């Protein structure tokens, strides 16, 4: 299956990172979001962001940023996705929103179009079941920042066809990603473990066992991780971490996913991390 026209739903961190990646690899991108201002920001910063990627990847040296701009079509109207070959959603981790989106796209898109969910934790089978094309629904968990992360989790549901898996893996290869194929489960592999780690780090902080920088330093220097749990949480988004923990708890019915009260407080006070420039590090500088 030739995949040229791609649809990206949601112009948040992941959606825009993905749209940028697809453009860099020569795909046509239809990017939609209900918030027009997010689309405008992406369009206005596109040339700068393409140049930024060239700076870190010589592979894109011959790219003419202005040319790529013509391959981007943005809209608040999902109808523009009707000719897309492959759609990847990156909307908020909220079941009702995803359900409504898939039902709508199912009626708009061609019957051959593959639907991929770049979800953090909501099971793919559950998402596939609200469409009339469950065999063409798959999960792809891209990592942030999308253009720089070469490996992704690919999640097949009980209903995903072999053809959809094959097409997805080859499509990913075309955009410079290697997919690791796993079975469906809430949070898959990465977020099932990562969210608990970050949540426990918040408990350690709340209990006064160690400071935020000490906890991060232990992960970086003792384990050799590039970032500690708090730096990771700031990058992902503290609000997203909270939401993902709630989704994991709802789906797995396990209290170990109960969000730490400190995490709730930080998010309630509007600290969402790098995305709104109110990080957990800033929160503690301001409050301690």
């Amino acid at each position, binding site marked *: 299956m030739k995949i040229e026209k791609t649809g990206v739903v949601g112009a948040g961190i992941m959606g825009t990172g993905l749209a940028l990646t697809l453009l860099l690899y020569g795909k046509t991108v239809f990017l939609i979001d209900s918030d027009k201002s997010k689309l405008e920001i992406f369009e206005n910063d596109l040339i700068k962001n393409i140049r930024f990627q060239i*700076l870190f990847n010589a592979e894109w040296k011959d790219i003419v940023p202005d040319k790529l701009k013509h391959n981007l079509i943005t809209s608040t109207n999902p109808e523009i996705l009707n000719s897309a070959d492959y759609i990847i959603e990156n909307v908020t981790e909220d079941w009702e929103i995803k359900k409504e989106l898939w039902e709508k796209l199912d009626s708009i898109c061609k019957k051959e179009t593959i639907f991929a969910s770049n979800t953090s934790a909501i099971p793919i089978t559950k998402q596939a079941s609200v469409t009339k094309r469950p065999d063409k629904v798959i999960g792809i968990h891209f990592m942030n920042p999308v253009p720089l992360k070469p490996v992704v989790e690919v999640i097949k549901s009980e209903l995903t066809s072999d053809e959809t898996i094959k097409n997805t893996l080859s499509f990913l290869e075309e955009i410079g990603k290697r997919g690791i194929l796993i079975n469906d489960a809430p949070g898959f592999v990465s977020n099932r473990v990562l969210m608990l780690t970050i949540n426990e780090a918040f408990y350690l902080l709340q209990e006064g066992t160690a400071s935020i920088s000490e906890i991060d330093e232990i992960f970086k220097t003792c384990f050799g991780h590039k970032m500690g749990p708090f730096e990771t949480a700031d990058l992902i988004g503290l609000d997203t971490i909270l939401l993902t923990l709630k989704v994991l708890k709802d789906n797995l019915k396990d209290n170990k996913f109960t969000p730490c009260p400190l995490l709730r407080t930080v998010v309630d006070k509007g600290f969402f991390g790098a995305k709104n420039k109110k990080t957990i590090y800033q929160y503690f500088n301001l409050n301690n």
Partner: protein
Amino acid sequence: MNELKKKIKLFISEKIDITNLADTDDMFKQGFVNSLFAMELVMFVENEIGVKVENKDLMLDNFRSVCAIEKFIMSKK
């Protein structure tokens, strides 16, 4: 110190503490700055020095240190 070097150092010092930064130090390797700062340096060279950075010049090596930035600018003048 020449005017160009002074200008480069002034720009960097507005963003980070350069007390311990030697002119030849790799700012990225030594953790003085994160990768996003690289783009700020590119914008500085274009907007404040007036040197266009072409695609082929978009290499981190041109922006790693005060000396590297100076050398790059001089090669374009």
